[in-house]
C-alpha cells in the first residue's frame, strides 16, 4: 500500500493534505478497480488464448472472424453477448443464494490478487502472512460454488457442488504442505520476502533448491492447484459428459460470465503463486537481464504456467471421483509429507 500512496501523492501533491484514512480508501478503491480491470482483460485474453491453443492442438484454427487478426475480439463479442442476455433464475431456485454465489466466487479471486508481488515495489499489500492469507482466502471460493450448486435446485448442479467441495477440501492439503517446504527454505510467509530470498540467477530459485526435492514439491503444488481451480484432469465439478455443466448448469448471462471470469482469474492466481514460490517471482533468470522490469518476468512466468494448464487440459481425460480422492490422499499428501521431512533434515544438516 505504501508505494501506491507514495505514487499518488507524488502525482498529485494536493492529495497529501487529505486525511490518511480517506487517502487510503481512495487508493484502495483505485487499486481494486485496476485489479478488476486487469482480471477482466486477462480473462478475455486467456479465454482467447485457450481457444487458440486448443484449436491449434486439434489441427483447427479457432475463432478467426471477429476483430480481424485471428479473431482477437471474439471473447469481447462473447462477453457482450453474455452481458446482454436475459437474466434467468430458475423458478424453484433459492434466489438470494443464487445471486450471491457468482459474486462470492468472483470477489474471492479478486481478493487473492491483493498479495501478489508484481515487482520490487508494486504489490497491493505486502502482508507478512501473505502466503497464509492467499491459502485461506482461496478456499473460500468453494462456498460460492456450493451455494451456486445448491441454490440452483438442480440435481446435476448439486452433484457438481458436492464434488467441488470434496475436491477442494482435499486438495487444500497437498497445496499447503508443498508450500510449507517453501516456507521452510525461505523462512518467511511474506510473498515479497519469498521472492527476495531467491535472488541470483535461475539456479537459486526455489524449484532448483535441494534438487530434485523442491522440483517434486513444485510438481505436487502444480497438480494440486489444477484440482483447486477445477481444470482437467480434475474438472469433475463441471464434468460436462457426466454432469451436463456441473455447478453452473442453471447459470446464464452475466452470472455465468462471472463464474467464467473467476475461473480464469483463479488459473492466473495459482500460476502466480507457483511463480512466486518456486520460480523466483519477478526476478529475471539471469541477473544481467535486470533492466527488464519485474512485472514482465512475473507475468511471463505465470502465463507460462497457465499455458501448461491449458496444454494439460487439451491432452488428458478426466479422473473419476474416487480416483481423484486417491490421488490427493494417497499420492500427493504422503509425498508432500515426505518432502517436508527431507527438506527439514537437509536444513538441519546444512545448518
Amino acid at each position, binding site marked *: 500500500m505504501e508505494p501506491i500512496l507514495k505514487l499518488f501523492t507524488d502525482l498529485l501533491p494536493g492529495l497529501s493534505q487529505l486525511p490518511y484514512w480517506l487517502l487510503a480508501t481512495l487508493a484502495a478503491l483505485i487499486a481494486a478497480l485496476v485489479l478488476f480491470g486487469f482480471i477482466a482483460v486477462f480473462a478475455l485474453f486467456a479465454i482467447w488464448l485457450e481457444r487458440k491453443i486448443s484449436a491449434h492442438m486439434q489441427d483447427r484454427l479457432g475463432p478467426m472472424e471477429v476483430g480481424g487478426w485471428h479473431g482477437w475480439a471474439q471473447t469481447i463479442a462473447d462477453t457482450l453477448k453474455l452481458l446482454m442476455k436475459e437474466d434467468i433464475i430458475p423458478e424453484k431456485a433459492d434466489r438470494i443464494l443464487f445471486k450471491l454465489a457468482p459474486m462470492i466466487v468472483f470477489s474471492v479471486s479478486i481478493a487473492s490478487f491483493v498479495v501478489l508481488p508484481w515487482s520490487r515495489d508494486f504489490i497491493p499489500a505486502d502482508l507478512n502472512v501473505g502466503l497464509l492469507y492467499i491459502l485461506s482466502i482461496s478456499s473460500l471460493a468453494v462456498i460460492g460454488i456450493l451455494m451456486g450448486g445448491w441454490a440452483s435446485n438442480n440435481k446435476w448442479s448439486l452433484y457438481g457442488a458436492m464434488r467441488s467441495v470434496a475436491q477442494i477440501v482435499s486438495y487444500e492439503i497437498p497445496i499447503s504442505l508443498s508450500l510449507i517446504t517453501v516456507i521452510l527454505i525461505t523462512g518467511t510467509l511474506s510473498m515479497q520476502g519469498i521472492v527476495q530470498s531467491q535472488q541470483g540467477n535461475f539456479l537459486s530459485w526455489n524449484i532448483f533448491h535441494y534438487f530434485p526435492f523442491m522440483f517434486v514439491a513444485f510438481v505436487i503444488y502444480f497438480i494440486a492447484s489444477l484440482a483447486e481451480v477445477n481444470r482437467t484432469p480434475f474438472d469433475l465439478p463441471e464434468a460436462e459428459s457426466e454432469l451436463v455443466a456441473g455447478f453452473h448448469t442453471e447459470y446464464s448471462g452475466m452470472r455465468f460470465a462471472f463464474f467464467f471470469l473467476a475461473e480464469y482469474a483463479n488459473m492466473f492466481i495459482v500460476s502466480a503463486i507457483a511463480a512466486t514460490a518456486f520460480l523466483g517471482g519477478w526476478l529475471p533468470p539471469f541477473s544481467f537481464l535486470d533492466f527488464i522490469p519485474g512485472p514482465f518476468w512475473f507475468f511471463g512466468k505465470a502465463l507460462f504456467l497457465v499455458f501448461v494448464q491449458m496444454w494439460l487440459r487439451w491432452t488428458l*481425460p478426466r479422473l473419476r471421483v474416487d480416483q481423484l480422492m486417491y490421488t490427493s490422499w494417497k499420492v500427493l499428501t504422503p509425498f508432500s509429507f515426505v518432502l517436508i521431512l527431507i527438506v527439514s533434515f537437509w536444513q538441519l544438516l546444512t545448518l
Partner: protein
Amino acid sequence: MAQTNNFPETRFELEIPDPLKTDEFILNMGPQHPSTHGVLRVLLKTDGEIVESATPYIGYLHRTFEKHAERMTWPQVVPYVDRMDYLASMNNSLGYALAVEKMMGLEVNERAQYLRIIVSELNRIASHLVFLGTYGLDVGAFTPFLYGFRERERIIDLFEEISGGRLLYNYIWIGGVAFDAPDGWLEKVNEFCDYFEPKIKEYNDLLTFNKIFIERTANVGVIPADLAINYGLSGPTLRGSGVNFDLRKNDPYCIYDRFDFNVCIGKGEQGTVGDSWDRYYVRIEEMVESAKIIRQAVNQIPDGDAKETVPRNVRVPAGEIYFRTETPRGELGYYIVSDGGKNPVRVKVRAPAFCNLSILPAVARGTMVADLVAILGSLDIVLGEIDR
C-alpha cells in the same frame, strides 16, 4: 493411479442405522444429456455417486421405419435403411440389399461385390473413428474427438466422390451399387490407407494407453462372455468379452471369405476381460484390420460393369428371410417377408445397438455415475438404430 473398486452387490443390502438412512436420489439422465449419444433417457437411482439402478427409456427417435417400409417399394426402402444407423449407412444398406438379393436369388456382379466391401469397410473405420472421438469425450478428453473426425472427413470425401452423399449415401442397391468408382478413386482409397495406419499410433499415445484413460475404463462395466451371449450382444461389444465371433468369419456373406484378416477379441490386457477398455481396444484394432481388407480388395478388384446386375424392376418372390451382417455395431439382421408384391410385407430390423443397450441395467448396477457414462460410451449405441 487409483485402484478401481468393484462394489459388491451386497453393498446396498447393508443395514443402515435409521438416523443415517437417506433417500435414493432419482436422476433423469437425458433425453438431453451430453453423453447419452442422442436422445436416450436413462433413469438413474443413485446413492451419492453410486448408481443403484439404471433404466434406459428409448423411443424418442422412433421414426416408424418398419411401418414406412411396408408402404415403400423395394428400392425405396434403401434410403430409409441408411437413416437407421446414420454413422454406418453403407453397412446398413449392404445388409438390406443382400437380404433382398438372397430372396430374389440374384448373383451380383464381381466388381460391385468388391466395391461394396471397400465402402462398407471404409464406413466401418469411419464409424469406429466417431466412437473413438465420442468415447474420448465421455471420459473427458476432447482432442481425440477432433483427430478422429479429421480422418473421418477424408473417408467422407471419398464417399462423396463415389456416391454423392456425405452421410447418407443410398449407394448400395439391390443387385449392385449405384455408381461405379470414378477414375482414380481406388488409388485414393489406397492413399487413405497409407495415411490412416500411422494415425493409430497417435490415438494410442494420446488416449488408449494414457494411464488416466486406463483407470477410467479398465475393470469398468465388465461383461462376462456368457452374459454377453445371453443378452444377444454382438459385434465389438461381444468380442470385447473375449468371444471370438465375427459374422464376416463365422457366417460369411458377400466375399469376405476371400480376404485375410484377424478377428480382434478382448484379452483383458489392462484389466478384466470384457471391460470397457477391451471393448474400446477391440474397435481400435478392428480399424487396422479393416484397412487391411480394403487394401486387399483394392488390389484384387476386377474390371467390369458394377451396375450390370441391378434389376430395372425389383420383383421379390413370396417368402421370408432372416439375413444378418456385421456392421460396426454388431449383428444387423433383417427379417423380411414378401408376398410377391411390389412392397415388402414386413421388414423387421434386429438392430445391434438395441440389443447392446439392453444390457445396460445389468452392468450399470453398483458403478459410479462417471462409470455409467464410460459403460454407455463403450457400448457404442446409435439411437437412430435403436429407435428406428
